[in-house]
C-alpha cells in the first residue's frame, strides 16, 4: 500500500511502487483528467504538479513521490476558476481538448514560478506539451492573458 497526497487528500493506493503515477490517478482514483498520450514523457498530456512543479505523471513512479503534494487538473481550483482556466475559456483554446489538462497544468506551474513570462519563456516551457489540433497560438494568448489578469 502506497500513501499519496492528491489534491489535498491522503489516499492509499494498492499497487506496486513501480506503477506510474498516471495510472494510479486514472485507474485507482478515477482522476481521468490527467491524460495518457505517450507514456514516454514526450507529449505532456499527463502533466500534474508535484509540490507545485510540472511533472510528467507517466514518468513518475508512485513509490518515488513520498510526501510530495500532487495536484491534478481536478484539484487546480475547486470551481475550475483558476486564472489559467478562465483565460483558456476567454481565448477559446480547446479543440478536441485531450491535451488541454496537461497544457493548463504546465501553464499554471509556469505562472506560479514566473508571473510575467516573456514570449520566449512561454515557448520554452510549453514546448514540452504537444497539441495535434494546433491550438498553440491560442495557448500563447491565453497564458499572456492569465499573466495580465492573474
Amino acid at each position, binding site marked *: 500500500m502506497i500513501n499519496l497526497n492528491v489534491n489535498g487528500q491522503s489516499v492509499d493506493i494498492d499497487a506496486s511502487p513501480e506503477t506510474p503515477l498516471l495510472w494510479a490517478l486514472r485507474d485507482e482514483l478515477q482522476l481521468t483528467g490527467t491524460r*495518457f498520450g505517450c507514456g*514516454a514523457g514526450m507529449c505532456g498530456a499527463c502533466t500534474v504538479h508535484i509540490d507545485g512543479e510540472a511533472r510528467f505523471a507517466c514518468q513518475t513512479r508512485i513509490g518515488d513521490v513520498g510526501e510530495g503534494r500532487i495536484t491534478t487538473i481536478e484539484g487546480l481550483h475547486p470551481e*475550475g476558476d483558476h486564472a489559467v482556466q478562465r483565460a483558456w475559456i476567454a481565448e477559446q483554446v480547446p479543440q478536441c481538448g485531450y491535451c488541454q489538462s496537461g497544457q493548463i497544468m504546465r501553464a499554471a506551474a509556469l505562472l506560479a514560478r514566473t508571473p510575467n513570462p516573456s514570449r520566449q519563456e512561454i515557448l520554452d516551457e510549453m514546448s514540452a506539451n504537444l497539441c495535434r*489540433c494546433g*491550438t*498553440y497560438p*491560442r495557448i500563447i494568448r491565453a497564458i499572456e492573458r492569465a499573466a495580465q489578469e492573474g
Partner: protein
Amino acid sequence: MTLQDITTSRRGFLRGSGALSFALLSGGGLGVVADGAEAQAVADGRVTAWVTITADDRMTIMFGAAEMGQGVNTSLPMIIAEELDADWSTVSVRQVDSDPDGVYGNPGFGGNLFAAGSSSLEGYYSALRQAGAQARQILVQTAAAHWGVPPREVTTREGAVIHDGSGRTMRYGEVAALPEPVTTVSQIAEDDLKPRAEWRIMGTDVERLDSPGKTVGAPLYSIDVTVPGMFYAVQLLAPVEGETPTIISDAATRAVPGVEDVVVMDHAVAVLARSFWSAVTGRDALEVSWSSDSAFRNADSAGELSILAEAADDMAADPVIWEARGDAEGALAEGEEVITAHYLTEHVYHAQMEPLNAVASVDEDGLGAEVWLGSQSQTVSIGIAAGTLGTSPDRIRYHAMQMGGGFGRRTVFARDLLRDALLLSKAVGRPVKLVWTREDDVKNGWLRPATVQRLDARLDENGTLAALRHRIAAPSIFEFAFPDRWNPETRRDVLVMEGSESAEYDIPDFAAQHVLVPRQSRVSAWRGIGWAPNCFARECFLDELAERAGSDPVTFRRQLLSGTPRALAVFDAAVEMSDFGNAPEGRAHGLAFAGYKATLATGVAEVSIEDGQLRVHRFWAAVDPGIVIHPQQYRAQVEGGVLFGLSSVLRERTTFTGGEIDQSNFYDYEPIRIQDVPEIEVRLVESGHPPSGGGEIGVPMAAPAIANAVRVLTGTTPRQLPFPQFDA
C-alpha cells in the same frame, strides 16, 4: 416550393407534462413529441427529436456529427437555434448516439452519421434551418391559439413569443407547458427563413459549449470510461500485417499481479487485467512467436517510393482518368516544349493525441452489446459492432464519445479496435476497455499513402498555361478501406484523387490521372485527404511554370483564375493582407491557392532559412467558407490546419522495413511543437455561397506556400514532403 402539411406521427397532443420535443421526420417535416413518457425517452436519447424545450425554459438541441474538436457541438446547434429564435443562454446540446429511424444522418453524407471531409456544416445546413424554423412555427401557432389571436400577429424574440397588439409575451418554456400544442406545421419556404440581416446567433462567436469541461479535465473520452467489473486489455499485436501468433508462452504474464486472462486472437495476443498497468506489465512478460509467411514481410517504404516513381513515369501504364477537360494528351504530344516536374509526398501518421481505444460490454447471449467509442461515424461503428457479433444494429447500445483528435484515423480506419474490444468482452464475459499504447498506435498506423506526382505542362506563345497533366502514382485507400464499395472497373478513388482537378483554373487541355500501385502498408485518409499532397504538387509547379513564362506567382495565377470570381476574391485578399512579395530582409513570401471542395482559400507564408534551419515566421490565410456560422472557431480550424500542414513540411515521415513501421513514439515521430508556430492571421472572405467546412482547408495551402517561399530564398523548390534538410 409547395407547402406540405406534416402531421405529427407520434403523440397528437400534450398532457401538460411541460416538455415539448420536435422531431424532424424522415420525410423532412416536423412533428411534436410530447407527454411524460416520451419526454423521458427523449432524455434517454431513444426518440428522434432535434429540439426539446422544457417548462423550466431549458432547450436541448441534438447534433448528429461526431465531435472531435472541430466544434460541431456548437456550430450545428447554432443553426437550429437561429431559426428557432432561441435564447442561446438556455441552450444545451447533446450528441446523437444512433439513428435507427434515419432522421439525424448528414444529408450531404448519404444520410449517415459520419463526420469527415469537412462535410458537416455543408451537409446539415439546410435541414437544420428547416428544423429550427418549423419548431418556431409550432411555438408561434400554439401561443396564438392559446391567446386566441391570428398566428400572423405573433412574433418571436430571443426565446419568447410576443403578441404586440395585446402586449402579451410568453417564454418558450411556458409555451411548452401549455396543454394543447399545435401539432401540424407546414414546410417553411426558403424565402420565409430568417434573412441574414436578422441573424443574432449564426455569424457570432458564442462560447463553445464544451470549453468549460475541457478546462477541468472532465471525463469526455472513451479512454476515461469505467464500467463496473471491467477488465483493462492491451494487445501484443502482430509485428507485420497478416501474421498470426504461433507459439505463446504466457506463464510469466499470468503470474503478474492483477492479470486475469490471456486471450489469443488471430492477429494478436491480448492481456486482460484489473488495471491498465498490470496489463502492460503482463504484456511485457509474454513470449510469442509469429508466423512468417505474410507477403507484407517484403514491404519496404523506400522500395515503395521507387516503385511509385517508376509508375508515375510509366506511360504504358493504364491510369484512371480522374478528370479530363479538352485533350491534354494531344496537347502535350504536339512536339512543343513540355515542362515536367516530379513531386514526392511520404507516408505520414495521424498522431491524434488520444491513442485508439474502445470500451465494450457484450450481453450474456453474445448478440448485443453496449459500446463506448470515439469514432467519426456512429453509423459505421454500429454496423461494425453488429457485424462482429452477427447481430442486428438495434442490439448495439452505442455511446458516441468525444474524440481526442480524429484527423481521419477514427473513421472506418479504427474498426479493428472496436471489433477486438467486442471479441475480448465476449471471450471473458466482462466489460473490456481495450487501449493501445502510443507505440501500438504508431506501429499499427493506417498511413496517408506516399505519392509520386508527375506534372507535365505546355505554355502557349503568350506564356499562358495551355495544357496540364497531373499524374499521381499511389496505392488506393478506398480499395483497402472500403473493399465492398470498391469498383474494380472504374477504380475511382476519391480519397487519393480529390483536389487534383484544378477546378478553379481555366486550363484548356487538362487531365488528372491516377496510376494505381499495390499498397505496402495500411493506408487511410489524413487531414486534408487527397487535397494536401495534390495541391502541394500543383501549386509548386505553377510557381515553377510562372518563372518559365517570365511571369510571377500572382499574375500567372490571376490569369488562370479570371473566370472564377470567388477564387479571385480570396486570392486577392491574401495578396493584399500579406503585402505579398514585400517580405522583410532575409525572408521571402510564397503563396498557394487551394480549394477544399466548396471552400476556397489562398495562403501566404513568410519564411527564412538560417544555418540550415527553415523557419516560418508568419502565415496569412484568406478563406471563403461561403457563409460562416462561427467565425472564431472557423479561424481555429484554419489555424489548426495550417499547423498540420506545416508539421508535414518540417519532419513528419513514417517509414517501414520488412513490413514493420520503424517509428515508435513521439521521440521518433514528432509533430510540431509550440516553438515552431508562426504568427497566423486568418481572414474570412464570405461570398454568400452555402456554408462549407473548415477542418481541412488549412492543410492544402500550407506546404506549397512554404515551398514556394523557399524557392525564392534558394532558387530551388523543395519538391518533397517532408522537405529535405537545408545546408547549414
